[in-house]
């Protein structure tokens, strides 16, 4: 097996290396942007009435007044050692703060992904094998309407229905899974419901198209000619070769889910990374913004490595490199 694992390691390291320029571009751009922001960091921390001596002392201590390049390299040096700096105001460790917050966002994002997969893929399998039928037409129309509803509209409408009219689910608040799993489920449901419709519609569209294309393949015609039951053909012959494309869409839609989590978390006051970056942007807490940008880029590099590796697991014809 060790000989078999080597190409995988090589493929992973190539992709990790390819992610480095993206990471540097994003984080450097963020550092440069932060110097455009009105008011210096020291001024923000100390308030309006700070004396110039106090400001100078703080700048000397944290290096807030250094030129962009020097600040960036200082930050990068810290990151290499796993140190993302401290938050401007409470001087907490940014890395520790983010680990807690990211867990919340990931829980919501992965549950939304799971829900949409469970709904979209079976429906797409069925309608792709019965094209032009009523259910196919209806679902296609529903999907294109759902794709046109922005997340912030979904959030407002579902919160109104489930929290205000029906009073089934809480409109704000959060409980960690580790503290109380049941309460966690209670709080996570509405955020997940808000992210799922768009995601489901998108996945449904892509999956239906893929299944439709696979159903035209010769091996499906052969299977049909042999008189195999449709359900068997769908599960054994159609599902697997279509999955790589579906997997890519799942990977790509992490951008959407993360963007959606900003809206969802700010509306339901859920302490995830979306909520954190909004409050950090509000208070110009630059180290937090910088760390979240780094985290986002890192997530995408990792996700695309996973998607590529998933390809080779699903479809052995695909070469890892």
């Amino acid at each position, binding site marked *: 097996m060790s000989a078999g694992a080597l190409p995988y390691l090589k493929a992973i390291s190539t992709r990790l290396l390819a992610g480095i*320029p*993206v990471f540097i*571009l*994003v984080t450097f751009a*963020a550092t440069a*942007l*932060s110097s*455009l*922001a*009105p008011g210096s960091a020291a001024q923000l921390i100390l308030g309006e009435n700070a004396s110039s001596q106090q400001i100078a002392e703080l700048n000397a201590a944290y290096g807030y007044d250094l030129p962009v390049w020097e600040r960036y390299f200082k930050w990068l040096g810290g990151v290499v050692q796993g140190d993302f700096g401290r938050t401007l105001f409470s001087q907490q460790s940014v890395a520790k703060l983010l680990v807690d917050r990211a867990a919340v966002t990931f829980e919501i994002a992965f549950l939304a992904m799971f829900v949409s997969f469970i709904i979209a893929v079976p429906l797409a399998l069925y309608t792709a094998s019965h094209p032009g039928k009523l259910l196919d037409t209806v679902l296609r129309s529903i999907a*294109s*309407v759902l*794709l*046109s*509803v*922005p*997340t*912030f*509209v979904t959030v*407002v*409408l579902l*919160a*109104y229905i489930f929290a*205000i009219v029906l009073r089934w689910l809480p409109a704000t608040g959060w409980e960690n899974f580790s503290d109380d799993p049941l309460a966690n489920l209670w709080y996570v449901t509405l955020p997940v419901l808000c992210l799922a419709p768009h995601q489901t519609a998108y996945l449904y569209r892509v999956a239906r198209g893929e299944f439709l294309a696979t159903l035209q393949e010769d091996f499906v015609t052969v299977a049909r000619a042999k008189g195999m039951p449709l359900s068997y053909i769908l599960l054994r012959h159609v599902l697997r070769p279509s999955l790589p494309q579906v997997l890519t869409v799942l990977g*790509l839609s992490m*951008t*959407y889910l*993360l*963007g959606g989590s*900003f*809206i969802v978390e*700010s509306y339901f006051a859920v302490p995830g990374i979306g909520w954190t*970056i*909004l409050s950090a*942007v509000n208070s*110009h807490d630059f180290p937090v*913004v910088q760390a*979240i*940008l780094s985290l*986002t*880029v890192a997530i*995408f*590099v990792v996700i695309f490595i996973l998607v590529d590796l998933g390809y080779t697991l699903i479809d052995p014809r695909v070469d890892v490199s």
Partner: protein
Amino acid sequence: MTGARSRKPAGKPVADPQSLSEAVAAARPRLSRLRLPGGTPVEAVCAAFLLLLVLLALFVDFIPGLASPNFPYGDFSQPPDLTLNGILGTDAIGRSILSRVLYGARTSISIVFFATLISLGFGLLFGMVAGFYRGSVERAVDLYANTMASLPPILVILALVASTGSSVFTITVALGILDIGTYARVAKGGVISQSNRDYILAARAMGASDARLLLKEILPNLVPALTAIVPTLMAGLIITEGSLSFLGYGIPAPAPSWGGMIASSTDLLSRYPLLIFGPVLAIVITVYALNTVGDYFARRLSSRERQG
């Protein structure tokens, strides 16, 4: 061509009244006849809606009797009634929601239009150079496109707007920055696939300069692929701009924006749920129309490619 079929030959005198009424019914424009070439009725309606929206946004100042979007015109939080200004109700300080939706359309459309000009312009420039000369320009374009694809648009735009302050100008530029990579990548792909064709070889043999090849020979052939993605990317920009306003980082008050209107009506949602429908319908229908027209373009493009 379905469009040609709907135009009945006008000749042939009609004798009896029954066939006359039939002829009148046949000549009356029916929804099922309204089509874009090779498109469905829904696609035609969506295109017509977008045209109407642009006209309304351009000429909203001249609509007779429309109240000002920024001043109270009646009682606050009134439910919809049958007057022009009250048809969508009034907001928390008594402003006409219809008026604010229409003026909000003007803001959204102009921001998205100019942002698209920015991203299309720069995207074309960088994409064409990257596709033609390859090398380091191509690597830079790929890096930019990959970077933008790996970040949620709202995160990019929040970072930009938070550090530059939010005004119509900064939001337009920030939105314009988002899609440069996507347009550049499509332009680049188009240039690469066109460069090896015979007509380029012929033009080169005749001594055409690089600029002439790019602008006169290749550019016209990039237009279909680029127009096909414009509506869909515009829909994305409408959503991003709306999200930004919803989060409170959009165009500063009191200028009306759809996202901001939705955000402010959520506070009153439990008591006045009807008042949210105006801005919600405006943004959902606009995005739907853009997506549908985008799908139409994309389908036309792919059938064109299959033929040619």
